[in-house]
């Protein structure tokens, strides 16, 4: 048995939001973990479910309201078309960095061994069925089941 010296062995990431910047943060963290040989699982809950909703996942937007780091006055951020504009600008920048689109990123995560789960309660709340979701998810599970999957030394949980 090898001695545990505090290294991260598993990342349990909870994604509760569907804005592009949050979805990418979760995906990059999960993918980055696998690249380092760390296990990774993602639990999609509440609005985070949109990131694995087949019809919605390619239409996620950046939030332009209530986000001071966008440097757009809140009043302007709420104007029609602002979210779409900011989103297309961000997508252009991500293309330059060779960042994949949401669906391709999910495929990469799946192929890299990231386990993905949909939250049962949120699925029921939004009247969603497993067939509505990206086919690479492991299943629809409860919070308790997700915690059980995080058992073991060196597991970290992250809420996004």
């Amino acid at each position, binding site marked *: 048995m090898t001695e545990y010296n505090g290294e991260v062995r598993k990342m349990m990431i909870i994604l509760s939001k569907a804005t592009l910047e949050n979805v990418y943060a979760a995906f*990059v963290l999960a*993918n*980055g973990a696998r*690249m380092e*040989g760390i296990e990774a699982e993602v639990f999609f809950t509440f609005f985070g479910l949109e990131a694995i909703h087949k019809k919605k996942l390619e239409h996620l937007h950046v939030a332009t309201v209530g986000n001071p780091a966008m440097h757009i006055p809140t009043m302007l951020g709420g104007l029609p078309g602002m979210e779409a504009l900011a989103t297309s600008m961000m997508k252009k920048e991500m293309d330059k960095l060779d960042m*994949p689109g949401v669906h391709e990123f999910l495929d990469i995560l799946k192929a*890299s061994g990231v386990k993905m789960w949909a939250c049962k309660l949120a699925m029921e709340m939004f009247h969603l069925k497993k067939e509505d979701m990206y086919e690479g998810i492991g299943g629809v599970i409860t919070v308790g089941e997700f915690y059980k999957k995080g058992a073991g030394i060196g597991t970290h949980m992250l809420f996004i």
Partner: protein
Amino acid sequence: MEKAINGKTIQVNEEGYLTDFSQWDKNIATEIAKEEGIPELTNEHWSIIDYLQDQYKKEIPLSIRKIGKSGVVDIEKFYALFPQGPLKKATKIAGIPKPASCI
């Protein structure tokens, strides 16, 4: 720092990556692979190593996404062939620098 492999001395950095690619040869790759927990390099491993070295010589940055699109190997197989951090391990075995990519 210096490292001795099969009677040959090579220059590596603190993480064990070769700092001078001209010192790389297939014996060194095989030995580093063993240290990384890969007992034998198969033809599939070698074709990936060739691809990585080729990209390095062309100064093209490496990422998991590009490996998946390379036509050499798919991502799932890449993880299976080089378990526990495939890009990190494969580049170390290939004698090229560790990629600074997050994707």
